[in-house]
């Protein structure tokens, strides 16, 4: 049984959609069951996802030139890896534009701590229960969140000198 099938079996109601494009098993789940799915991924011996490899987000504002309208603006994307079973899984959670907040995973995998800070820094998504949610790549005075699609790539914010 692949990790994807196992998750589908366990959380039939919590899953919005799944796909395995080019062999990457992906599951999109409801935000409410993020932590229960995460705990299951880590604790169940047949999955045993001991590595949280990567955690990031994607902004789907005006996706494909505005032709595709997504219900939620952001998606949180987490890549898991299990070194005992050598399998991978991608977990995605939709995040609302009005209230961009999801539960933290930093108490389950410590690696999530810094990744979540980066997602907060770049996308402005808050993590409920994060111990130290502050910017990591940009400075505290930085206005806005740079990887959002409505942040112009050539916008300048000089720290020193006259304001633009």
């Amino acid at each position, binding site marked *: 049984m692949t990790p994807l099938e196992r998750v589908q079996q366990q959380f039939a109601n919590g899953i919005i959609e799944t796909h395995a494009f080019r062999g990457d098993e992906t599951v999109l789940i409801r935000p409410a069951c993020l932590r229960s799915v995460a705990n299951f991924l880590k604790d169940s011996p047949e999955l045993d996802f001991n590595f949280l490899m*990567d955690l*990031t987000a*994607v902004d789907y504002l005006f996706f494909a030139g505005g032709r595709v309208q997504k219900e939620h603006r952001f998606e949180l*994307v987490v890549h898991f890896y299990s070194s005992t079973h050598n399998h991978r899984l991608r977990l995605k959670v939709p995040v609302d534009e009005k209230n961009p907040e999801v539960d933290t995973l930093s108490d389950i995998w*410590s690696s999530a701590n*810094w990744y979540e800070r980066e997602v907060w820094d*770049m996308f402005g998504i808050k993590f409920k229960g994060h111990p130290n949610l502050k910017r990591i790549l940009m400075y505290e005075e930085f206005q806005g969140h*740079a990887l959002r699609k409505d942040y112009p790539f050539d916008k300048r914010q000089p720290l020193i000198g006259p304001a633009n």
Partner: protein
Amino acid sequence: MTQTRNMLLNVGPSHPAMHGVIRMILELDGEKIKDVDIEMGYLHRAFEKMCETVMYAQCFPYTDRLNYVSPLINNVGFAMTVEKLLGIEVPTRAQYIRVLMSEISRVTDHLTCVGASAMELGAMSVFLYMIKAREYLWELVEEITGARLTISYVRIGGVKADLTPTFDENAFDKIAEVRKVLIEADELLTRNRIFFDRMKNTGKLTAQQAIDYGVTGPFLRCTGVNYDVRKANPYLVYDKLDFEVPVGSTGDNLDRYFVRMAEMEQSLRIIEQCLAQIPDGPVVAELTGEVMTAADMVDHAKMGETEALVEDEVLLDPTLQGSTKKYYEGISADKKSVVLPAKENTYGNIEGLMNHFKLVMYGHGIKPPVGEVYTAVEGANGELGFYIVSDGRDNPWRVRVHPPCFPIMAVLPICLKGDLMADLVPTFGSVNMIAGELDR
């Protein structure tokens, strides 16, 4: 009653022991490190944002600048991710060339890391020897790619140029030289009392902590966990090559040094095997005509004298060297919607010219299907992952790099706590922090 307080000490952002720019705020009790706060982002250049604004092929120069001590591995990782998105296969010879180049880069990366950390402990001569060895390898890289650092050598669907006829010979000579340097460095460091004592039992990390923080690469393997992407999920031709993954046991700085030294030897073995196994360079087109410059060929083509041009070879400047018809098509995927045509076709006939422009003009370019993929390759510091989301247009919707340094920097405070202030130098040296990929 005397009151004692912990002292706050600021190290960096510009400090000789901080490779690149990073700031650490240490809380010291006497000389003991109580707490560490790491502040990064000084080299943030918006890699991910800029990739969203350009076409897929234009991302390569940006990837060169992620890990600038082993840029070829970044190139390979990005190209493989886009190829997975497109669902195309790369010719075997190109796969061997990619492995060859990745392993040369891995050795240069480890040489820099070990050499620089030895220098910081006072072993200046080891640093110079190792940089000398790195120079030999960069000469090899230069021979093939035409550049030393910002190489942009790998292409989606293949590589830019084939190996030169003299490459085998040169590579064997250079490998022999590098081996000599490794033996020399080993003699100078491994039984060196000062080096040994400062590396032993400092910067310790357990396997459990390393896994919890998602650490990969030599930093994970020194704790005894045998995880290497090349073995766990073999990509390119790694499954046809015989090599071992060195694993440590104690998770201290000394083990990290041993793992890196052993890994360099394994990489050299891989390079030798690649050179022995690589299929012969396919001569795709026997060109019997004359050799002319690009400008002459374009002039002939404009005048309609295209019949003789089929047999002619074009003389290119060094940056494009190797993109001629003779070998180029044998090392690129046979897919016109992805791979640029050989330069004779671009300059000499209208179909090639159109194909070229269809790939380089804004709004045309390479258009992968809508979807998302993640590919991991073994970078010199650990798992280097690329996650790309495509919306079916010619520029990526989202490019995410999983930089191997990032989790290592997150776990660094754990390694440092309880050690002396002076142990910061070897521990931080063994991280091999590359600010380019950490801050992106």
